[in-house]
């Protein structure tokens, strides 16, 4: 912790690089589909959708966009929930690290598709949730241990719990809606 605090700027850049790598690794399947779609619709006639470089480019660009969106969301959520006792810039760093962890878990679990492609249908739904739970709880316990003052633990857990619940329910509703 002290090392991070002393070299915060360097730590932040390293975190961003880790975030981008894990993002591309964990979301490779989606990025391939998305880049195929882009190549198909925007550049019809030029066979670029199959190239890994194009997928990588799309991945890196969307990872940087996610960095920006996560910062906005994290700031807004902390303020909206009235949590002023946490150091925002350090929390943002750990948010990025644990989102990277989530993508890393998804990426590792996705490797099973190469052995058993039959699992893709279920994997994209279940693996994502398992990774989200693991990373979110990891983030909660880490921040709770190092930053949350006595008397505020329930308040902080309630925030994390509500966010996971809301996000998961939203994904279920959207997913089931897309099926019927």
């Amino acid at each position, binding site marked *: 912790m002290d090392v991070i605090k002393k070299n915060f700027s360097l730590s932040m850049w390293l975190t961003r690089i880790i975030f981008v790598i894990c993002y591309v690794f964990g979301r490779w399947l989606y990025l391939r589909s998305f880049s195929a779609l882009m190549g198909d619709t925007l550049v019809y006639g030029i066979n670029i959708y199959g190239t890994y470089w194009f997928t990588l480019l799309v991945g890196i660009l969307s990872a940087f966009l996610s960095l920006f969106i996560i910062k906005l969301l994290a700031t807004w959520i902390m303020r909206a929930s009235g949590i002023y006792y946490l150091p925002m810039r350090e929390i943002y760093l750990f948010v990025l690290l644990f989102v990277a962890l989530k993508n890393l878990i998804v990426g590792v679990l996705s490797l099973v598709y190469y052995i058993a492609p039959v699992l893709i*249908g279920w994997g994209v*739904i*279940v693996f994502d949730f398992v990774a989200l739970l693991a990373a979110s709880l990891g983030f909660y316990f880490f921040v709770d241990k190092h930053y949350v003052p006595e008397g505020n633990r329930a308040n902080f857990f309630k925030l994390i719990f509500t966010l996971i619940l809301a996000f998961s329910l939203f994904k279920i509703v959207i997913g089931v809606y897309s*099926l019927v």
Partner: protein
Amino acid sequence: MKKIICLFIVILISIAPMAVFADSSDQYSAYDFLNDFVTACPQRVSGSEGETLAAEYIKNKFIEMGYQTEWQEFNFTIDSGTINSQNVVARMFAQNSLGQIIIGAHYDSVNVGNGANDNGSGVAVLLDIAQKIADLSLNYDVVLVAFGAEEEGFYGSSHFVTNMSMTERQSTLLMINIDSVAVGDNLYFFGEDKATALNDSLVELANSFGYSQKAYAKPLSKDLNIIYASTDIPYYHTGYASDNSVFRIAGIPTEFVFSGTFENYDSYTQTADADFWNMHTANDTLLSVNSFGVKAKENMQIVSDTLSNFLTNDDFKDIIINARADMTNDIFWQTWPAYVIYGVLLLGFSIFGFLYLRKLRKLDLLTVNQKNEKKVFESASVEDIYDLK
């Protein structure tokens, strides 16, 4: 006068067989195309010179009929190296098009036999349909495709689908695949895994021409879940063992026409018929098809008559337009169990969350000072007791 009568009789006798032949030829024109095609292109293994010659043969036929043609080259790598192949595409545009219909047949063959049944017969039917509709004004844009490299793993159809834009895919009303339609006691129309208006109409129409050979509807596959859960095609039933599967996976409604003799309705096993069941064997020759007699010619002609009638008859317009709506919702059957698992996990997490939150609230109530006070009481010393007094 006698001489004139004799001359007339002689002429009549000499013309009569020709007239019979002409009738027969008209009745089974698809067979004529097969005869010509397999004689001209007996070897059509993927990547071979024979395959390219066959593609040129088909392209020339399309051009003779007045079609705009396209030569779609592609390559792929297998264990033996990189293979170059091509699709031949003929397009016909409607003035007021309701959408696009693709009719396809692969023209390559395996490395034994001449591929007369598999799939010279499909190519012959494709050319026969092309000839029948060439000068007609249809409600749909029609794309006739002779696919290369099917036998190696649907490479031609995959290349074709990959090159379709999203708009083109969505405007495609139907893809009909014709593969191996000469040999076999029955014709099968593989539609969806349920009865659809499209499948029923095709079977009904096929049986309405009065040929002795009969057509039947057959489900595409009983294991859509397993097949669709993959980005690839892990294993095949007959309904999926041809180029139609690539289009169906891309979300395009398909019909697959195939001739054979399945043991029963539910079975995908052909009855053992050493004389006629010749797929992927050295016996798949024109001679073998001929030995199947009129049945082979009828099988091919039923497909040609049915499909050309289906394209030109306005009665089938609504059925074709609604084919997409009749597709089985594969995604639903593929993913709903995953959402159940998701839901159970979420429920478990919710219960844990509420219990843990309750525990934390109790702990938070005991602020630092309260805890200290509690501690005082829990470990009361003599001084504390004295103070309390």
